[in-house]
């Protein structure tokens, strides 16, 4: 493992650098311990998100391009190799076919995905493959996905990843702190990660599928934001249940309240299981409705996804040609 990026140049920064980072707050459970979440009501609202708003035609094409720009294009598998990671990086640079971009009149936007997300061992490969693209590398960390390793190792891993050139660190929280109600321990842990990150941006993965209740999701969101998270993220993609709309609603409402209280912007990243263009649009509508348009840009919004891009490409081709597209017509990662 090398301790510095292979080339002498600075790796790309996180797009979240555009706004002031969330500095966090001192631990104060009174800010969140009275929050209650009613699952039925949340599900009802989540159910109407897609029914109340829709985007069609040119608007839809624009929204899908925007979705591409918010993707953390991800590979997190045991069989990842440098070759696989390089292919992914190239796809991140050129996510949509040029002829489609031309037809849509957006070639000059220089559309890329928001980031490439890999395990620590592939940071350097990715940084070098993305050189000059402006695309940052995100690394999952802290014993991802289960987080069942000693804290010292977790902190060491964060630091190593930053040194290796990762501009964004996706950490997993210790679910046990949530499940045992040890909010202070969770706060301390996340605050330590934030410190270890230095300039790199911190995304905290709550693994909501393992937190038991929506109230726990809300409380954990608050603790992570208080401890200085730049993004709060639903899932590793490895839990039995990953990103869902109800969970997202709870988390983005926490972001909204945190903003009201502190004036600090925290980003949102749903991850795992979002594979369809249509679903991506629903998530974006959720962001626009419950937060605002600032959360439709990579600085504050990401999709953690691997297969989503392929479906978006097919929808874009359909928009351009009026014909339903085929998977093999678009480059794989």
């Amino acid at each position, binding site marked *: 493992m090398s301790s510095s990026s292979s080339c002498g140049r600075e790796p790309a920064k996180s797009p979240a650098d555009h706004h002031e980072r969330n500095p966090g707050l001192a631990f104060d459970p009174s800010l969140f311990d009275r929050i209650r979440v009613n699952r039925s009501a949340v599900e*009802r609202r989540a159910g109407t998100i897609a029914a109340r708003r829709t985007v069609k035609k040119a608007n839809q094409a624009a929204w899908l391009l925007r979705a591409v720009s918010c993707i953390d294009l991800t590979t997190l598998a045991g069989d990842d190799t440098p070759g696989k990671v390089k292919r992914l990086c190239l796809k991140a640079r050129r996510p949509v076919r040029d002829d489609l971009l031309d037809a849509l*009149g957006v070639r000059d936007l220089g559309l890329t995905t928001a980031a490439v997300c890999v395990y620590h061992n592939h940071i350097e490969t990715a940084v070098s493959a993305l050189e000059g693209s402006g695309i940052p590398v995100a690394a999952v960390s802290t014993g991802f996905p289960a987080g069942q390793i000693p804290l010292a190792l977790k902190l060491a891993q964060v630091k190593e990843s930053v040194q290796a050139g990762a501009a964004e660190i996706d950490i997993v929280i210790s679910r046990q702190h949530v499940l045992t109600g040890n909010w202070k321990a969770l706060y301390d842990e996340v605050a330590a990660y934030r410190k270890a990150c230095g300039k790199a941006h911190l995304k905290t993965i709550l693994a909501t599928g393992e937190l038991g209740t929506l109230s726990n999701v809300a409380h954990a969101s608050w603790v992570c934001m208080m401890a200085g998270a730049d993004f709060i993220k639903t899932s590793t993609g490895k839990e039995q249940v990953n990103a869902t709309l109800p969970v997202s609603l709870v988390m983005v409402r926490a972001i909204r309240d945190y903003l009201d209280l502190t004036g600090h912007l925290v980003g949102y990243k749903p991850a795992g299981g979002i594979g369809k263009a249509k679903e991506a649009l629903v998530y974006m509508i959720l962001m626009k409705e419950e937060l605002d348009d600032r959360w439709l840009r990579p600085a504050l919004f990401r999709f953690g996804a691997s297969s989503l891009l392929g479906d978006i490409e097919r929808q874009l081709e359909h928009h351009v040609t009026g014909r339903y597209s085929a998977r093999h017509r678009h480059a794989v990662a």
Partner: protein
Amino acid sequence: MEVRDLFESMEYGKAPESKDRAREWLDQRGGVLDHYIGGKWVTPACGEYFPTRNPATGDILASVADGTDEDIGHAVAAAADALEGWVAIGGQGRARYLYAIARHIQKNARLFSVLESMDNGKPIRESRDVDIPLVVRHFYHHAGWAQVMREQMPAFRPIGVVGQIIPWNFPLLMLAWKVAPALAMGNTVVLKPAEFTPATAVLFAEMCAEVGLPRGVFNVVLGDHKAGQALVNHAGVGKIAFTGSTEVGRIIRKATAGTGKKLTLELGGKSPYIVFDDCDVDSAVEGMVDAIWFNQGQVCCAGSRLLVQESIAERFYDKVRRRMERLIVGDSMDKGIDIGALVDAEQLDRVTRLVDSGLQEGGELWQPECELPTGGCFYPPTLITDVAPASQLWQEEIFGPVMVSGTFRTPVEAVELANNSRYGLAASIWTENINLALDIAPRLKAGSVWINGANQFDAAAGFGGYRESGFGREGGIEGLYEYVKPFWESRLSKDPVQQLPRFVPAEEIDPHEAPAIDRTPKLYIGGKQCRPDGGYSNAAYDARGHVIAEVPAGNRKDIRNAVEAARAAEGWSAATAHGRAQVLFYIAENLAARADEFVKRIVSLSGKDAAAARAEFELCLARTWHYASMADKFEGRVHETPYRNVTLAMNEPLGVIGIVAPEEAGLLGFISTVMPAIAMGNRVVVVPSGHYALLATDFYQVLDTSDLPGGVVNIVTGDAEVLAETLARHLDVEGLWYWGTRAGSRMVETEAAASMKRTWVNYGLFHDWEDPEQGQGDQFLRRAVEVKNIWIPYGV
């Protein structure tokens, strides 16, 4: 705009639903909507048509037949002709038709949705996702009820021809709520849709024709209030079901008074939306969108009075205002809007006027800076805070997207403010504390209570009002009873079954009998014996015509006092059913202990022989035992609504019931009417039989020794007709049961309209009080309760 620009602006853009198929359908009809009578399309007898418009654009959609008496006459005749056959095909036969109707609507769901939105102005999303699916569900559910009617409701038969008048806010859904149960139970129907929104009723009639529904089973007469009035007044109609304003409901109550027409009224509301500080605040904010910005607020059960706990009020309002800023008011046919057009320019004027004049009494108005489309009937979402209960905005139904709000300090105050209304249709309670929610729900005067929700409906749950929001239920098994009659009702007699003794009153006390110790019967009010306000008494005669006592001549003020005592005895309504049962058993026990005394009195007053008097007494005892037994067994239900929730249908006492007991039936009439009422937790003001008044005044001594709290049973002797009128006119009496003359029945139903009290009158017919069906049973209990549906969603 170019994709490039949209990539920056990230606007939603427009998403119009196509109107083509609906236009095609209207064109096929030549732009004309006619009556559907006896399976045929019929032009109006008067030859006149009026236009119906799309309120979002002002465009004329079609010309609508203007129905009159003559059209109604034809339609009722057609329905009457179809009745026998419709009953004869049986439950299974009717179930098949209802099932086919459900299927057919489902297959044409989009056409119905589009047409509904064009005619009414509601967002296409709502007609597509709410109205039409609920319509389909209603027909499926009631197809099932038709199938199982004989097993589930063996004691009941159809009423006959039913007249139904529906409003414009949910045109097809209100049609379904009325038509499905009516047809399921074997009635035939004449429907009068609202003049603003006739289109989907015509399309529905077309579907009925297509599924081969026998001619005349379902008829539509279009038109305005003229047609409605003709339907209400038609002698061939056995029942009127009306949904609409309280004002019109009152007119219909009076118009049908004394006719024997069964009536359900689903009227206005000003439903409270109660937000406690321990709720899921963001969800409570979102719930308001479902409560008051659903269907432009043109919902009778809209949560239109926001009550927020003072400790969170400012924060809550702030969140509400921000939510309101996101609401999109737009063309009803756009799939991406929240609020469409009000139904008509007239309605827009009304809402505007009410808000403008209401604001002069105070309140702070807030409306988001949203763009309103031009050319249609649009009104922005509105929040008015700091509205006091004394103001018009708090009291009057606005029927638009306007929420008024105030604050409360404690749960008790929340209940008081919530119930401070003449209406009582629905309520929402927001709290995460089930302990609090389940304490508040039964205390609210509302037919539907939604915990952590708003405006939830289903075919399996009853819907309907308390107080001036009307009476009767739609949906659930409770709704079916509105479309049937018990078989025994047809057996009621034109002449008294139990006979009063015939005698010529003697002026003097029988000189041959030595005077007994003078016992003074009194009124029994609030658990105390008291003298009548007027200071007069009437002679009480025995069966031979001899005066045996003086009975107080109660007057208006005695009734007033008795009602006040009954009102104050609310602890009885809140007591456990077991506790009430114990008291009733104790009454029976103490009555039994005085058997000889009562038998003697019956002999003296009725002229029956001792054995017959003993038999009557035993029946009284048995009946008391029956209602003591039923006190904790006439239970509510858990309805099977298709959501993750428990929908509790609770039987609640009406409150204060006036009872004018049958003159001819003595102690048996008294026991048969009073016991079921108090068993269910009501407090009663009884006007006992005049001739048998001494049995009632003897009876209060039994009550006095039976732990019955004072005020639960109040007895006012005197002229039954005069006292009945005072009770009927009293605004603090929830129910009135009257067994008397035909004219008296008419008076009761007429006067009851003022406060929409629930009445049960005999139209001058006579029960056989010894008959186990006519004198006792669930029918009495059902009349003694109001069904409240409490929706309790759950999920961690």
